[in-house]
């Protein structure tokens, strides 16, 4: 009997939360917060001080809010004394008292100290005001606010990414303007070379194809030549090369920095759904919202996200319960679909190859329009392929039965591979067939055409697809076409892919068409307004929210991939092919790097040998080794920190359960003593007298006997259980 009682009421697993939230009102299971001693614990006192200082105003207790904190150990108390008054989380009256007390204490502070403190406060205020003014200068912030209110954070992330690319391109324009355009303009010894005039054969179509007038303008590589600026170490070709290299390095630094910052945030949030949920619940509401409609929308966004997380967690649990047969079936299906994806990619590349061959074949005698269309055949094919295939990939990913995030990521990875690889294939086919004079101009023209056509495609998509679709769905909502296409959502991943693609084209073509960043800047500004129009007029907010935080890392990483591809292409070009002998600033040299070699040769001896050493293997290899050693040390420190965190967590759980256990014991023994005091002659065993063996979780089994001594010696265990 007694043992059974012990088992039902006595064993408390204090390490889990069930014990504390149990609803058993048995006297043995006492809720922590009802124990008398709980209110005297240092942590409770610390909490109560801050509460009461906010609430009692009429009490005589005007104690300093900080000094009477017995719970605050030395360091925390010092921090509370030295932090600024306004950071104390108490009401105004208490802050006044704290300030008066501080003034009393620090009356001996000299004038120098107070002047220094005033200066630092003023400087901080000035910094805050400058920061605020700068952020107000950022354009389009009100547009972002509107879009975020109506469509959520994901769509706003797209527009923020667009603005970031715009800034990047502006910076590139500055650099190129300074290093490439300015010397040519200033030092152009031929003066009016007569190249910038319209000639007889020019037409408007030249702007689309890049021939005629444009071919002779600064847009393409062929315009630049060795001008009068001809010192050994400061000549136009060298500046041209330096400008391009600077642009690429700058882009690399900026994109890497942004990727790393985003990755740090994502890594902090971790990959577990639990973290997302507590984060969403605690930090989800935006207190800046004033409009009731925007508030209702935000509430629905939060609800949808929570449901999405819960659904993904249930999917994970379902996935864990799959049988072997189901796994086999699923894997075979996935293998088939992967093969299908590869076939589609191969087909796309073949199409591009044929289109390139067809456009390269020169055909005279055709109509001008036909020739222009043929010129544009490869960009058209590439754009069409990039338009349709990602949607196909999306449906394939849906069939593969992944969780929603994995579906989106898989589609994204496949689409980015498609875009970059199709661009790479196109470049490869171009280079294989370039045997013309001034092949650099040819290449520059192709990149120019790609860029222009990308913009045309975006324009046509908005005005010939998005608006008609909206009109159709609004006017004839029950027709089969409207039901097939459905309401329009702003598909963030595909739009971001378009941006990444156009930026990659800019980087690849930079060397052969130096004005590409300028064109890209204008294009991005136009795209911003077009997309804004599309989103605000034609789209409805998606119910399935796209998780912006982890995917923005993916976007920046894709941008980085594009940049790496551009750098590799350019590097291999510069090494393999020699500059053509009829155009461009590198006429006459065997490779592009002859100009740098000439410059290095002209330097004094020590500088030359230093430079030669810096670019040789004897320097690079030890540098790489040193970097590897540094990285390894960081990684091992991280692992050690992780282990320390786990150990500290275990210690914390253990000491909390110790605390709870001791609280309960203390309360029970107090109550037992009170009861025994009241009825000293009671012999029949009341409930509290039964031998409960509460096991202290952190101590060993051996302590059980010690605990049993806390039993009241006067109460004898008997057979009957009279309820107390």
């Amino acid at each position, binding site marked *: 009997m007694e043992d059974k009682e012990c088992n039902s009421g006595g064993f408390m697993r204090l390490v889990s*939360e069930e014990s504390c939230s149990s609803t058993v009102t048995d006297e043995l299971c006492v809720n922590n917060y009802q124990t008398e001693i709980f209110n005297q614990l240092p942590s409770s006192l610390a909490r109560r001080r801050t509460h009461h200082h906010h609430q009692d105003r009429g009490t005589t207790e005007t104690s300093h809010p900080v000094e009477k904190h017995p719970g605050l150990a030395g360091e925390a108390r010092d921090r509370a004394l030295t932090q600024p008054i306004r950071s104390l989380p108490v009401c105004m*009256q208490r802050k*006044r008292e704290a300030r008066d007390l501080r003034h009393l204490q620090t009356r001996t502070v000299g004038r120098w100290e107070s002047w220094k403190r005033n200066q630092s406060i003023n400087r901080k205020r000035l910094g805050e005001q400058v920061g605020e003014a700068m952020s107000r200068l950022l354009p389009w912030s009100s547009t972002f606010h509107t879009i975020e209110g109506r469509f959520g954070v994901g769509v706003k992330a797209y527009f923020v990414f667009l603005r970031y690319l715009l800034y990047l391109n502006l910076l590139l324009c500055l650099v190129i303007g300074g290093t490439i355009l300015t010397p040519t303009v200033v030092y152009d010894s031929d003066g009016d070379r007569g190249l910038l005039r319209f000639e007889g054969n020019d037409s408007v179509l030249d702007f689309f194809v890049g021939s005629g007038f444009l071919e002779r303008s600064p847009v393409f590589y062929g315009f630049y030549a060795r001008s009068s600026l001809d010192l050994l170490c400061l000549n136009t070709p060298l500046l041209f090369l330096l400008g391009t290299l600077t642009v690429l390095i700058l882009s690399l630094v900026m994109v890497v920095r942004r990727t790393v910052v985003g990755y740090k945030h994502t890594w902090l949030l971790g990959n577990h759904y639990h973290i997302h949920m507590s984060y969403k619940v*605690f930090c989800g509401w935006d*207190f800046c919202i004033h409009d009731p409609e925007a508030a209702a929308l935000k509430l629905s966004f939060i*609800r949808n996200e929570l449901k999405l997380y819960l659904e993904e967690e249930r999917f994970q649990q379902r996935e864990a319960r799959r049988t072997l047969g189901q796994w086999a079936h699923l894997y075979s299906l996935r293998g088939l679909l992967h093969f299908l994806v590869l076939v589609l990619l191969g087909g796309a590349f073949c199409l591009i190859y044929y289109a390139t061959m067809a456009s390269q074949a020169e055909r005279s005698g055709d109509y001008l329009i036909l020739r222009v269309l043929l010129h544009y055949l490869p960009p058209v094919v590439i754009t069409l392929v990039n338009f349709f295939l990602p949607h196909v990939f999306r449906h394939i990913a849906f069939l593969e039965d992944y969780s929603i995030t994995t579906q989106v990521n898989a589609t994204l990875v496949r689409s980015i591979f498609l875009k970059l690889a199709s661009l790479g294939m196109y470049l490869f086919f171009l280079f294989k067939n370039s045997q013309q004079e001034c092949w650099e101009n040819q290449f520059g023209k192709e990149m120019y055409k790609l860029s222009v056509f990308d913009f045309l495609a975006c324009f046509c998509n908005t005005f010939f697809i998005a608006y008609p679709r909206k009109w159709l769905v609004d006017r004839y909502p029950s027709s089969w076409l409207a039901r097939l296409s459905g309401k329009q959502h702003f598909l963030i991943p595909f739009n971001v892919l378009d941006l990444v693609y156009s930026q990659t084209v800019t980087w690849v073509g930079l060397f052969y068409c130096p004005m590409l960043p300028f064109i890209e800047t204008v294009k991005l500004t136009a795209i911003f307004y077009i997309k804004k129009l599309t989103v605000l007029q034609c789209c409805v907010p998606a119910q399935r929210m796209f998780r912006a935080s982890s995917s923005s890392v993916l976007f920046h990483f894709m941008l980085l991939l594009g940049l790496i591809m551009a750098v590799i292409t350019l590097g291999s070009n510069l090494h393999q092919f020699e500059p053509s002998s009829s155009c461009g600033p590198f006429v006459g040299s065997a490779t592009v790097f002859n100009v740098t070699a000439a410059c290095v040769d002209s330097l004094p001896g020590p500088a030359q040998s230093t430079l030669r050493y810096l670019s040789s293997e004897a320097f690079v290899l030890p540098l790489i080794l040193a970097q590897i050693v540094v990285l390894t040390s960081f990684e091992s420190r991280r692992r050690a920190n992780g282990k320390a965190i786990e150990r500290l967590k275990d210690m*914390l759980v253990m*000491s909390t359960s110790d605390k709870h256990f001791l609280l309960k014991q203390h309360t029970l023994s107090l109550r037992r003593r009170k009861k025994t005091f009241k009825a000293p002659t009671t012999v029949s065993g009341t409930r509290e007298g039964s031998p409960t063996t509460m096991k202290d979780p952190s101590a060993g089994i051996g302590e059980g006997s010690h605990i049993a001594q806390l039993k009241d010696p006067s109460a004898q265990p008997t057979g009957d259980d009279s309820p107390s």
Partner: protein
Amino acid sequence: MGTTASQLGKDLLSEYQELTFLTKQEILLAHKRFSELLSKEDRNLTSVPMEKVLSLPELKSNPFRKRICHVFSTSDMKDGSLTFEDFLDLLSAFSDSATLEIKSHYAFRIFDFDDDGTLDGGDLEKLVNCLTGETEDTRLTPEEMRQLISNILEESDIDKDGTVNLSEFQHVISRSPDFVSSFKIVL
């Protein structure tokens, strides 16, 4: 100790600047808005009842508006009415120059619906109900609510006592890159 005089004294103004995170213009604007709230009532009142405070456009659409009033109110009757100094305390905690510590401290108190110093299951349930909407069809099902609360506790409750205390709450908040910018009310 608020003031209902139409002008704010200079030394009071500088005192408020010292004790809060607000700039001079913000304090004057707050004074103006507070006086507007009072102007329809008796002039001798020093505190504004909760219903009037809730009619401010900045608070009207906020699902936590009642809790905010209760947290910042120092009235003895615990009815959520605010004096001018309470109002300044509110704006100071919600201003954009307030530190993360003070914001997380007040956020914790706002979410602590039963004022016991920790966020237990009941607090979390009320919190989620505030966030998902007031009507019946927008709430989560009980099953989903149970799953959500157990997930939140599993992640945030580091010492495994079944509740989220202030340090654990601040630990979750510190991972968020934009808590400071979203926990903001500007007049």
